[in-house]
Each structure stands twice: as C-alpha cells, then as structure tokens.
C-alpha cells in the first residue's frame, strides 16, 4: 500500500517525529511504499543539517537522512515554514543572500502542493504532530 506521512513538530520538543520515524520504518519493513514524508510547521526543523546532538543521544535528523538514503524516501520541507525557521537550501541561499545552507541529505524544500499530492496519490495519509 502507498502511505503518506506528515510531521508537524520539530525534533527533541515533541514525540511526533520519533513516532513518525518508527511508523515509517515499520511500514517499509512490511513492504509498503512511503509515497512522501511532508514536514510542515515546526516539523521542518527535522531537516536541518546543523544539528549536533550529544553522541550518546539519538540523532533525529541523521536518522531520517539515513532512512531516505536506504529507501529512496522523498522528504519534503514546506518552503514557507522553512523560510520562517531558517531552513535554507543552496538555491534559497543565493536568492536571499544568506551565509550558508543547511538542508540535510535526503530532504528537499518544496511547496504545500506536495502535501496535497501526497493526500491524493497515497492510499492513507498519517499525520503526526501536537
């Protein structure tokens, strides 16, 4: 089955991202297709490459990146939410004259249309948030 996932909260503040990660992993292990993971609102903080949690703590961002690498997941950060919160890719860096870019591997910035498309194309859309 095709599943869409939506994450509305950032890492380390709420369990939503952890729950979404474990759900996604379990769904992939059962042979389901993850059509897209859409990160909205504070959820975009899951995609910053600048996080450096203590070594003995789980690295929520890296964990998503690795899962995307293994399974070719489409991890999408909402552009408007990302701009408000300082999530910048190379294109946005140039466009806005910023000093760096910080979108973690496996993530990309795109629009809300990607969420709508996931809602239409996936058989189920599972929302994690607060």
């Amino acid at each position, binding site marked *: 089955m095709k599943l869409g996932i939506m994450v*509305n909260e950032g890492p380390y503040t709420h369990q939503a991202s952890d729950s979404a990660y474990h759900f996604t992993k379990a769904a992939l292990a059962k042979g389901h297709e993850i059509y897209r993971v859409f990160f909205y609102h504070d959820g975009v903080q899951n995609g910053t490459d600048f996080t450096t949690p203590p070594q003995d703590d789980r690295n929520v961002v890296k964990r998503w990146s690795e899962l995307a690498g293994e399974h070719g997941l489409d991890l999408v950060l909402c552009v408007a939410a990302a701009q408000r919160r300082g999530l910048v890719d190379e294109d946005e860096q140039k466009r806005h004259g910023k000093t760096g870019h910080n979108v973690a591997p496996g993530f990309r910035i795109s629009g809300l249309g990607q969420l709508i498309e996931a809602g239409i194309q996936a058989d189920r*859309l599972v929302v994690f948030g607060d």
Partner: protein
Amino acid sequence: MLHIVNKSPFTAGALQSCLRIAKAGSTILMIEDGIYGALDGTAVSGQIREALGDITVCALSHDLEARGVNGKVLDGITLVDYDGFVELVTANDGVQSWL
C-alpha cells in the same frame, strides 16, 4: 475508520471529542501521551470500558513501556507494536489524527 489519539485525556479534550464522533465499528489507537486514556482506575476508565462494546480500542505498547504503565491497562484494550500500528492504518479505510 482509525482514530489516532496522542494526547492525555487529563490535559486535552482530544479523546473526548474522538469518543463523541467515532462511529460503532471504528478503532481508536492511543499513542504517545494518549496512552494515559488506556489505563485502569482513572477518571476516564469507565467511559472507555463503555465504549469498548462498539469501538475497538488499541494502545501502542512502545509508548506504554516508555511511561512505565504497561501493567495498568484496562481489560479489553488491545496492545499493538509499530507493526500493529501499520496494520491498523492499512486495514482501516481512513485515518484521522486527533491533534
């Protein structure tokens, strides 16, 4: 229909709203702090026990264990792991998160 409740019934009205709206034959899955709604001997236990006739109530074992309350679950509530969570999502024709 699968209803996902992730808030404690003692801090938010999500479970109450869900119980009011959920139709007979549907399933409620309690995750995160929502699992506090699955415990025996609380102010909402009676209401959950009543709902169990028409509604299937499940709780995520991972989140019960994380909070140290896995031994305190009401009789009649089904414990599921993440595999079971995925199965509930695919077996029901729709999923509603009560955020």
